[in-house]
Each structure stands twice: as structure tokens, then as C-alpha cells.
């Protein structure tokens, strides 16, 4: 038996979304084509951690958006949403505040009535804030028992600085400090139509669009304050290696990484391919060597995570405690190999084809299309760059990848955190 010839993906075309302009100034983008009568609607606010004046302000404001309005209390809001079979989630990340609605067509109208009421009139009742705080502190206590959580906190803290929006550590103290006024301030300044873009995916026709426009287009909350924030400069790394011993640990969590480049940078797409080869998929060098050859870990990955104002390259794993040093040594060895030796062409082909399969998947169906479009939108990169990114990945060769490794995989600038 021989393997059939492998075909290569020829074209990856990304369809443009439909664009709608509502009378309150909101722009909505839409992808349709799902067979079932369902919709996902995302309200994306240009906010998140980087617009906070007080730590955790964004997360608390987002997570408590259903805590009651002048018309409905928290229970009534949740009960209505549950009765419609809908889901309404709101959360804040580093880059945005996102409110997502999942619903069936037949409850679209009623669900949006509740959502817009929350966005217009959320009162942030003290009682609901208190419950949320105690649950948050309880979850924090559990997280603080996990090595990977502790490693991540130390990594971000050292990389960005303790007061930086991406770097601060969540503590019971800062949770307790948050006040109702902090949340109302963030809500009134950030969660307003002029700071919001809407993304609609699933199945829709004229009827659904009219309902969406009726609710979202008539949402007229205004802010008197202009959001101004200043983000601290990144610190100079004081200590490149941080190691915390934990009694009774049977594994160590390792994170190694540095500040990297964003999507708008000309080297970005090449670096994505290099990262794939290094630690971005199951067939990567880190996985092949440290898991599949040596059995030191269940999994080891490297990734590029994109933040609004920065990007981070990092390698993460939980490794067998006795062989922690061997694991570290092999990680650095794999970095050096990429800088000193040319990657064989067949290895590049496998990783490139794998990556192109991932990119093709991002264009498959309304929900994936919307995810991809949203990612570019949030990062402020024109979606037309997607097809260019695919082309750049196709054009990489052993020499260009080696050059990227030499330029970006700088071990003396990397931070290493070990907990265990």
C-alpha cells in the first residue's frame, strides 16, 4: 500500500462581510450562511484592561453587566434570558470588552430588549458586587494552588511591570478595593455606542436585520467624559530567571518568553510559520523532542499572543520534576538549532501545509469567518492583509526562517519562570 499523492491547498479566499450603518453611528458587520435559525451577536467595545483607571475595573464592569437595571433585578434578567434559551456573556480581556449573545431567531427580539436595557441602565447593585467579589476571591484561592497559574502571574508581572494593565497581579486586596462608583465610571465612559462595533454571524434575513437595527440602532447612551489613559512604559528586565520551589509538587510549570512583534509587522507571518515549526503544533520540534522522544511532558507549546499594544512570544509546559533541567536544556537547544542550522525543506512543507489548513478552516462557515474578521478588526489590521499573510507563509524558505530565528529568538532577552 502506498500513500495517495498529497494535494496542496491552492487558494484561500476570504469573503468580505456585509456592512450595516445604524443611525446612532454604530457599524455592524455580518456573515450569514448557517442553515439553522440561530445568531451570535458580539458587541465589541474598544476597552479592556488597557483603559482601566483601577485594576480589575474592566472585568468587574463586564461580568456584572446583568446585575440589575432600573426595570429588572439580576434574577429577572437571568430568568428572562434563560427562558428564551439564549446565552448572554460579557467579559473583559486585555484588548476589549465583549458582550456576546447566542440565540434562536424566535427569541431575538425579546433577548435584545433585555441586552439593551442592561447596556443602558445597569445599576451595579452593591449586593451583586459583594457576591461577585466573594466568588472571585474563592476562585483566586483555588487558582493560587496551581503551578501554571503562579508561573503565568510571575511571567506577566516581570515582563510588563507590576502596575502595567497586562502585568498586575489579581489579589484579594485589589478585589476588595473595587467600588460601585468605579464600575459605574467605567460603564459610563467605555460601554457606549460610540465605542462599540457589532458583529453578527449565523443566519439572518431582512426580518432579523430589522429587529437588530430596531434595538441596537436606537441605543443612544452618551458619555460626557472622554476616556484618556496612559500606559506605563515596559520595565527593563531585572532578573531573567525566576524560580519558585513548591513543596509536594510532582511537576514544574515552565514559561519562557519575551515581548514580540504584532500582526502589522512585516515579519509577523513568517514568524507564525517559524513558531509552528518550533512549538506551534503536535509535529513541532519541542513536541517531537521533549514529549515524543524523551517523554518528559504531556505537552509543550510555544505561541504568539497578541495584545492591543504589544505581543508576547512564549513557551509553556508542565514537566516531570526530576528532569526539569534536562527539559530546559532541550528547549534552549532547540532554539539554538533554529538559529544555527537550516530547517530541512520537507519539515517546512509539513508545517506550512498544516498552517494553511488552519487558515482555510478560518474561512469555513459564517462563525469562523466572523472570528477571523473580528481578530483583524480588534488588532486594527485591514482584513485584506489576510490573503497577503497566506502568501507570505507560502514564500518562506529555510534561509528566511533562519534569519527570523536569529532576529527574534533571542535567549538572552527571554524571561524564564519555573514553579514547582
Amino acid at each position: 500500500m502506498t500513500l495517495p499523492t498529497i494535494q496542496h491547498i491552492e487558494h484561500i479566499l476570504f469573503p468580505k462581510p456585509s456592512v450595516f450603518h445604524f443611525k446612532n453611528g454604530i457599524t455592524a458587520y455580518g456573515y450569514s450562511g448557517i442553515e439553522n435559525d440561530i445568531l451570535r451577536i458580539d458587541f465589541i467595545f474598544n476597552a479592556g484592561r488597557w483603559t482601566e483607571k483601577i485594576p480589575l475595573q474592566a472585568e468587574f464592569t463586564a461580568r456584572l453587566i446583568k446585575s440589575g437595571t432600573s426595570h429588572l433585578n439580576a434574577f429577572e434578567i437571568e430568568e428572562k434570558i434563560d427562558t428564551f434559551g439564549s446565552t448572554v456573556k460579557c467579559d473583559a480581556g486585555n484588548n476589549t470588552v465583549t458582550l456576546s449573545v447566542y440565540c434562536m431567531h424566535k427569541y431575538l427580539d425579546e433577548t435584545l430588549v433585555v441586552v439593551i436595557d442592561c447596556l443602558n441602565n445597569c445599576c451595579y447593585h452593591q449586593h451583586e458586587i459583594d457576591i461577585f467579589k466573594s466568588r472571585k476571591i474563592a476562585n483566586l484561592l483555588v487558582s493560587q494552588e496551581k503551578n501554571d497559574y503562579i508561573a503565568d502571574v510571575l511571567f506577566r508581572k516581570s515582563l510588563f511591570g507590576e502596575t502595567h494593565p497586562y502585568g498586575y497581579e489579581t489579589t484579594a486586596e485589589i478585589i476588595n478595593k473595587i467600588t460601585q462608583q468605579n464600575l459605574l465610571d467605567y460603564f459610563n465612559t467605555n460601554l457606549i455606542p460610540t465605542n462599540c462595533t457589532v458583529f453578527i454571524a449565523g443566519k439572518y434575513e431582512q426580518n432579523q436585520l430589522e429587529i437588530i437595527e430596531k434595538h441596537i440602532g436606537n441605543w443612544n447612551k452618551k458619555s460626557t467624559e472622554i476616556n484618556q489613559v496612559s500606559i506605563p512604559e515596559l520595565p527593563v528586565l531585572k532578573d531573567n530567571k525566576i524560580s519558585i520551589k513548591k513543596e509536594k509538587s510532582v511537576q514544574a510549570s515552565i514559561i519562557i518568553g519575551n515581548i514580540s512583534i504584532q500582526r502589522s509587522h512585516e515579519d509577523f507571518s513568517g514568524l507564525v510559520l517559524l513558531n509552528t515549526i518550533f512549538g506551534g503544533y503536535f509535529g513541532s520540534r519541542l513536541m517531537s523532542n521533549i514529549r515524543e522522544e524523551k517523554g518528559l511532558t504531556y505537552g509543550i507549546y510555544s505561541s504568539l499572543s497578541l495584545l492591543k499594544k504589544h505581543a508576547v512570544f512564549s513557551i509553556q509546559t508542565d514537566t516531570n520534576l526530576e528532569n526539569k533541567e534536562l527539559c530546559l536544556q532541550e528547549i534552549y537547544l532547540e532554539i539554538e538549532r533554529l538559529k544555527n542550522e537550516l530547517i530541512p525543506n520537507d519539515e517546512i512543507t509539513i508545517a506550512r501545509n498544516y498552517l494553511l489548513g488552519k487558515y482555510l478552516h478560518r474561512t469555513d462557515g459564517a462563525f469562523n469567518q466572523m472570528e477571523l474578521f473580528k481578530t483583524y478588526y480588534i488588532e486594527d489590521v485591514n482584513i485584506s492583509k489576510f490573503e497577503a499573510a497566506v502568501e507570505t507563509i507560502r514564500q518562506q524558505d529555510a534561509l528566511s526562517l533562519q534569519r527570523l530565528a536569529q532576529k527574534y529568538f533571542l535567549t538572552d532577552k527571554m524571561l524564564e519562570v519555573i514553579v514547582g
Partner: protein
Amino acid sequence: MINFSKEVLPNGLTFIHHHDETTPFVVVNTLYNVGSKDEDEKRTGFAHLFEHLMFSGSKHFPDFDKPLQEASGENNAFTNNDYTNYYDVVPVINIEIPLALEADRMTHLNINKKSLNVQRKVVCEEFKENYINLPYGNAWHLLREMTYEKHPYKWPTIGKELKHVEDATLEDVQCFYDKYYQPSNAILVVAGNVSKENASRLVTTYFGNIEPKKVEHKTFDEPIQTAAKTKTVYEDVPLNMIYIAFKMCDRLHPDYYIADLISDIMSTGNSSRLTQRLVKKEKAFVSIEAYITASNDIGLFCVEGKIADGYDIEKATDLIWQELTLLHIEKITDVELLKCKNKMLTTTKFAESNLLSTAISLAYYEVLGNANLINEEEEKYVSIVTDDVQRYAKEIFVKEKSNTLFYLKKSAT
């Protein structure tokens, strides 16, 4: 509504096809009817370890992952108590690649010392990462052991202990492979942008020549529980936790859907009973949920909650019992019933738009006995009335049939 067709090849392989013309992809999903319940009690964790070994390459193709990745594909697998499932997703232009690879590893797996040695270590690290080095990580080890008396559901898929995984031998591997990895014990789903005729022709080409072999399946008994069981452990955890488990019906029993709906009434959605009453009103718990294990045989209905710091454990336990016995005396409201049904409808409609999840579901329902359950379950759930809930709650939420695990912090001693 999911369209599909089914045929059984002469060697016993069940082949299911689902057509979706909107996608450039195809999913090849192979489910083997073998899980951790088929293991020997003294050598647990084996079905899952074996799943890792299925990626060791086969006679004609020394590497499984590489050709799939080169074919722009993605693949993975998972094992549970009942079955082992392997999936490959590739652009439809490369449909033959996963078919060739899956057919070859169904009959000619490259069983060798080196990959057994490495994967034993990898699985031990997986065991440590998810069940030892994590707060409450071994809770389900304890709960299963306490709840099941005879049924092999009494150990988890990862294995009872690390030593069982470390002790696995090459003979065990060969024997397990010969016994369970046979066409008649597999369900192959091809889902995506390929016509039924083409899919059927290709499946026959690649799998048609595999020799048939009969696979025997054991059935398992489990006595009816007549006395309440309790276990208390003290560990380095930040909060006290309580787990209460009840045995329930099997997956194909009509009451299964009632148990599912009860768990939804208790904790699905923020307006659900446990969340509203015990977390938000009483502040006894910081989180609490009810869920079912959905096992093929006798499943478990479980309530687990993290008790608020300083709240009395006994009082918290009583509160859970109050909620369970309330279902005996008071009927649930029409609004609660409507909530659960609408939630289920929305969830189903979203799941149907995902090709991989559809392919896995088709294989799963077929191993239960009827792939068309994928379309029939909605009706079974929607037809539940409030009397059903009361009847079944009375049957299972009984003190004598309960199994309670108190997972407490050490400082509380």
C-alpha cells in the same frame, strides 16, 4: 436535522456518511467500541495508554501524524469509560490520506518497545498534570471507587494509579489490539463535502479487505445500593468541597432524559435553582453544579459544590438535600420546563453547525445502538412533563442511595 446514511461492510465495519456541501473539509472519525470499562481491575488506564500508541505509525506508513499534517489536516483522539474515538479533519482534496492511514493502523499497527516506553512516561505526566498536581485532582478517583461496587466504572479512564500505567507490557498491548481493534468493533464516519457514492467507494477500497474477526463484549452488573456511603478526606486545598453522587439509569433508558433535565433545572443557566438559592441567596457555596456522567451503562447524577469559606459543612450538605427532596414534594414550574427545553434547542442548533461535533456525535449514537438518535433526542427531551420529573426525583434522590465525598481542607481538622 442531520442527514446521514449507514451501511455495514461484509467484514462488519459500520460506515456512516454525512453530506455537507458548504465546507471545503471532510472529517474521518473512527470510533472503537472499547474503553476503560473493558480493562482488568489490576491493570487500569490501559485503553487510554493504548490510544497514545495508535500514533506510533503502522506497517505501510511509519508516521501517522506527518502525512496528515502535510495534507493540511488536524487530528486527535480521546478515550472515556465506554469508547475510544479518533478524528482527522482534512481539506476534502486530501480525503484519501486519513482513510489510508486509519485503515492501515486498524490492522497493521507498529507495536514497539520504544513507543511504549515513551508513551508510558507521557501518560504518567498527563496523570500528574491533571490528577495529582491539581487541587481536588483525585476527587473523581475517590468518588467512583466509593459509588460503584462491581462495575468497572469504579476507576477513571486515566487509571487507578500511576503504577498500572508504568507496568504495562508489550504483550498487553498486542493482546488488547488483537482483541478490540477490529472492523466489526469500529464505526467509521465520513462527514463533509463528499458525495455518498464517492465516500462509499473509497471506504470499500481502503477498509473492505480487512479480515473480519469477532469481538466479544462483557456485560457488567452493579447491585442496587441500599445504604448511604460517606467518605471524608483532608488535603491541602483552599476551600471545602462536597460531592454527592447517585447511580441512575443507563444511556438508552427513557429516564435518562429526565435526569438530564433535572440537572439543567438545578444548575444550567444563571437563574437555575442551585445558583440562585445556594450561591446568591444563602451564600453557602461559591459555586455549585449538578450534572450527569452520560455513561453507556449505569450513570451517575452528581452534585458538587465549593463551600463558602467559614460556612458550616453540615448545614451546606442539608441545603443540597433540601433542594433534592423539594423535587419530591413540589412539581417544577412550567417556566422552568420551558427554560430547559429552549436551552436544549439552542444548544443543539449551534452544535449542528459544527462538522466535527456532528461526525463524533453520529459515531457515538451509533455505538449506543442507533445513529438516528442524533435527530430523535430533541423530541424525547421536549416530551418530558412535570410529573416525570417528580417521579424520577423520588426514585433516585434517596439517602440510602447516596454517596457523599467531603473533600476538606487540612486546617479544618
